[in-house]
């Protein structure tokens, strides 16, 4: 955040979340743990309220997954319900296929961009970002899809947007200059 010129603080204080101008929701680990932690610290409601009132929100990796209604990692778990849809496991490699990707999907993958939103204005088609995940969002509305990657025969959704609520499955903070550019765009969004 410092590198892209943001004024930021790392917090788990619901009040700070409630008064934030923008929110980044990072996440590593499992969907269920992430949601449990948010709820335990009283952060789930402030995040939802802020997002619903138009405060720009960027969820990263598991932070993107929990934006949805539910996820199936370790059984059905409820998410924040900010974007309609679910989170599903990626398909396993196809036998004998050329493009087989082992799960977890670890490494750099080229994005297919499906949006003209300013957040992606600096990301050209085919730009590679760094992924490490076994699950991906399945939005109910095609209009919420910002970017996809090909994984074992399907187009997995890896970036979503609903109004001022954004989510990216990849790690922009680990994706070199391309990822930093996206973070910078988020910081600069009105």
């Amino acid at each position: 955040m410092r590198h892209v010129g943001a004024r930021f603080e790392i917090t788990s204080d619901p009040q700070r979340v409630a008064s934030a101008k923008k929110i980044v929701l990072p996440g590593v680990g499992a969907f269920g743990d992430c949601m449990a932690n948010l709820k335990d610290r009283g952060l789930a409601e402030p995040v939802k309220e802020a997002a619903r009132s138009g405060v720009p929100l960027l969820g990263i990796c598991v932070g993107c997954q929990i934006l949805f209604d539910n996820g199936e990692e370790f059984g059905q778990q409820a998410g924040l319900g900010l974007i309609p849809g679910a989170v599903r496991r990626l398909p396993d490699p196809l036998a004998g296929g050329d493009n087989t990707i082992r799960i977890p999907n670890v490494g750099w993958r080229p994005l297919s961009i499906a949006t003209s939103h300013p957040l992606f204005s600096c990301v050209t088609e085919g730009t590679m970002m760094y992924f490490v995940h076994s699950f991906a969002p399945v939005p109910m509305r095609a209009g919420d899809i910002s970017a996809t990657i090909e994984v074992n025969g399907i187009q997995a959704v890896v970036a979503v947007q609903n109004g001022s609520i954004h989510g990216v499955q990849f790690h922009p903070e680990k994706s070199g200059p391309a990822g930093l550019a996206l973070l910078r765009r988020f910081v600069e969004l009105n």
Partner: protein
Amino acid sequence: MPPVRLIARLDIKGPNVIKGIHLEGLRIVGKPAEMARSYYEQGIDEIIYMDTVASLYGRNNILSVVEEAARDIFVPMTVGGGIRTTDDVVKALRSGADKVAINTAAVHRPEFIREAAEMFGSQCVVLSVEAKRRGPGHWEALTDNGREKTDVDVLKWVAEAEQLGAGEILITSVDMEGTRKGFDAELIRSVRERVRVPVIASGGAGSAAHVIDLARERTSDAIACASILHYGTAPISALKAELAAAGVEVRS
């Protein structure tokens, strides 16, 4: 074909990056933070820092290297060497590492892999294996930076480690490392057949051709290089260009 990750492997001794030359000893090749930053700017996909003498210098040394690097290096970083407890893992991650590579501690106590994976997630836990060939299709896992024998069969070990939660396997050929004569392709292939998690090949690259040959076998998800980068034999942009020209997809 999914892009092959190119990883820079920095073996660290005290304040320096060193490179073991087969049968000759160690050579100092530069300063860790400078080299890592330079590789990042040239387009390396990931960086692995291996502390080769963790017990002698204490862990703080490599952690301060990682901390400094994390300030302006924005690709995944893995730290290995002397990671023995979950506390060590916490410290490594807090310094800015995304993953830890575990070898000796895991061989002595395989449950450590499970503990680390449960606490931090499998994606953080890389099993590092130093493999010494003992016969056709048979390798022994060495520990303590290649100094100690174990009687542990590499192929059985990687499968066990995956079950315990290791998210990636970093497989280094002890026989080929530092020789610059190429990878032990049979070792890499054999490991890949035993596991379903990503495999990082390490040990032996002496030219771009070695990397290309291995990449074309599609047995590695990632290829770690040391000598060819540290000695400038195959600078990153040239290496990636040659890989692309040979039909191997890489991140540009």
